C-alpha cells in the first residue's frame, strides 16, 4: 500500500535516518517542537563562515517528520546560508501549493504528496522551521510549528 505519500525514499529514510546523531562541535543547536502531535527534534549545524559544513539531528517523530529531517540534513551540507534558506522556501512551496516546480529540489521531491494531506504539512516542515531558526539566529532555543 505504498502510495503517493509514503514513497519508498520516505520509508527508507524513516527506517534508517541519515545524520541522526548529536554533534559535539556544532556551532548551533536548536530544538523544534510540534505541539499538535508531540514530535520533538534537535537540529545541529556546524557552520564554517557562511557555509553549512555539517548537519545532524536527533528526535522522535512520525515517518514523515523523521524522513524530512534526514533528507534535509543531507541536502544542507555544503550549502551557503542563503542557498539553504532559499531551499527551505522551495520545500515549503512544494508541500503547500499545487503549482510548485519540482526542479532543483532533488530527492526532496518525494515530499510532493504531502500537499494532499494538510494535517501532515507540519510533520514535513518541523525540521525546516528548526533549520530556519538555526540559520537566522544561531542561538539555543525552541521553535514551534504553531
Amino acid at each position, binding site marked *: 500500500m505504498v502510495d503517493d505519500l509514503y514513497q519508498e525514499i520516505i520509508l527508507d529514510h524513516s527506517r534508517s535516518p541519515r545524520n541522526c546523531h548529536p554533534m559535539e562541535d556544532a556551532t548551533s543547536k536548536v530544538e523544534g517542537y510540534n505541539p*499538535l502531535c508531540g*514530535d520533538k527534534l534537535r537540529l545541529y549545524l556546524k557552520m564554517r563562515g557562511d557555509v553549512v559544513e555539517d548537519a545532524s539531528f536527533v528526535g*522522535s517523530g512520525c515517518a514523515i517528520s523523521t524522513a524530512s529531517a534526514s533528507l534535509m540534513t543531507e541536502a544542507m551540507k555544503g550549502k551557503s546560508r542563503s542557498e539553504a534558506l532559499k531551499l527551505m522556501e522551495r520545500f515549503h512551496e512544494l508541500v503547500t501549493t499545487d503549482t510548485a516546480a519540482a526542479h532543483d529540489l532533488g530527492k526532496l521531491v518525494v515530499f510532493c504528496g504531502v500537499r494532499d494531506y494538510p*494535517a*501532515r504539512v507540519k510533520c514535513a516542515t518541523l525540521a525546516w522551521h528548526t533549520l530556519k531558526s538555526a540559520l537566522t539566529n544561531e542561538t539555543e532555543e525552541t521553535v514551534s510549528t504553531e
Partner: protein
Amino acid sequence: MSTLTSAVQAGFDVEKVRADFPVLKQKVHGKPLIYLDSAATAQKPFAVVEAIRRFHEVDCANIHRGVHELSQRSTAAYEETRGKVKKFLNSRSKNELIFVRGTTEGINLVASTWGRKNVHEGDEIIISALEHHSNIVPWQMLCEEKNARLRVIPMNDRGELILEEYEKLLNPRTRMVAFAHVSNALGTITPARQIIEMAHRAGALTLVDGAQATPHMKVDVQALDADFYTFSGHKVFGPTGIGILYGKTKLLNAMPPYQGGGDMIKVVTFEKTTYNDLPYKFEAGTPNIAGGIGLGAALDYIHAIGLDKIAAYEHDLLQYGTEALTRIPGLRLIGTARDKAAVLSFVIEGIHPHDIGTLLDRQGIAVRTGHHCAQPVMDWFQVPATTRASLAFYNTAAEIDALAAGLQKVKEVFS
C-alpha cells in the same frame, strides 16, 4: 465473526440504527467510511439534523423576548430541552440545568464563579491523573490566581485511579474534587459515587466531567450526589456549541453570575442590576438556540433506543475490539482499566500514531491520533501520542475486523 450475539439477543439492531445516521452512508478514499472517532465528536442522527433545519426554516426567532408566534415557538422548543436534560441526568429541577457551550465552558463557569468566591490562599483543589486539559487548566488558572494548591490523584498502570492515594490527598483545606467520569484518552470509568462520597466526607465539593460518560451510560446526578456535572451536546449525538452544566440549586444560588448581559438580569439601572433567577442568571446573551433544540432531539433519540441497550451493546463491542487488537503482534493497548467504556487507545512498536492515522484514513477508517488533549496521561505512559479508536453504538464488529485488517496493512508498509 461480525455480529455480536448477545446484542442480537437483547434486541439491538445495529443496522437499523446505522440507517439513522446520514453521514455513515459515504465512501472515503473509495472505501466505505468506518467512523471510529466518536469520542472526539459523535455523528448526528437524521432527527437532529432535521430538528435544526426545521428551527431555521420554520420557527426561527429569538427566545424569552418576543410576544409573537415564532418567538413563542422557539422559546418552547428550546426550553423543552431543559426538561429532556432533567430526565437524562435525573436532576431534581430544570432550574439547576444551565445551558453552556460545552463541557469546557461548564468547568470554566464553576472555576471562575464558585472558585473565585470560595477558594482562598492555601486551599486545595484535587483533580485526577486522567483529566482532559479542560479539567486541568481552569483549576490551574484558579490556583495561580488564589495561591491555592492543585493536587492530583495518581493512577496505576491500567489507567485506574488509586483511591488509597486519593484518600491521603483529602484534608480540611480541600475545596473541590474535579474528575472525569470516563477518561477520553483511556476509556477508564472512574468510581464516581465513591470519589464523591469521600470528597463530601472531607467537606469538599465535586465536579464531574461527564463528556465521555453521557454517550455511553445512564447518569443519575442525584444517585451520584454530584455537586456539579457537565457534558457536551456534540458527544451525545447533538450539535457542537451546546452543553449542560448541572449544579445543586443552593450552590448555584450562592454563586456570582458568570457573564453579564441580557437575559441574566431582572432589573437594570445605571446604579444597580438585579440578577435573574436560576437558570437564567448564568445565561447571558442570545444562546445557541438551534443547538439547544438539536440537543433535545439527540436526547429523544438516545432515549428511544435506551441507554441500557446502548451500554450492553458497546460493552460487547469493546470486548470484541480488545480481543481483536490484542492479537496484533507489537500492539500495546494504553488503558486497560477493568471498568472501561468505548475507547481503544494503543501504540504499535516502531510506527508513529500519525502514520497509522494517515494510512488508516486511506482505507476509509477515521481514528484520532495524538495526545487527545491529555498530555499528562501520555507522559505517564511514556508515549508521545497514541492512536485512539473510539466506539459508539453505530459501530459494528465488522468495522472492528476492518480496523484490525487495516492495522496489518499499516504494519506491512513499515515492515
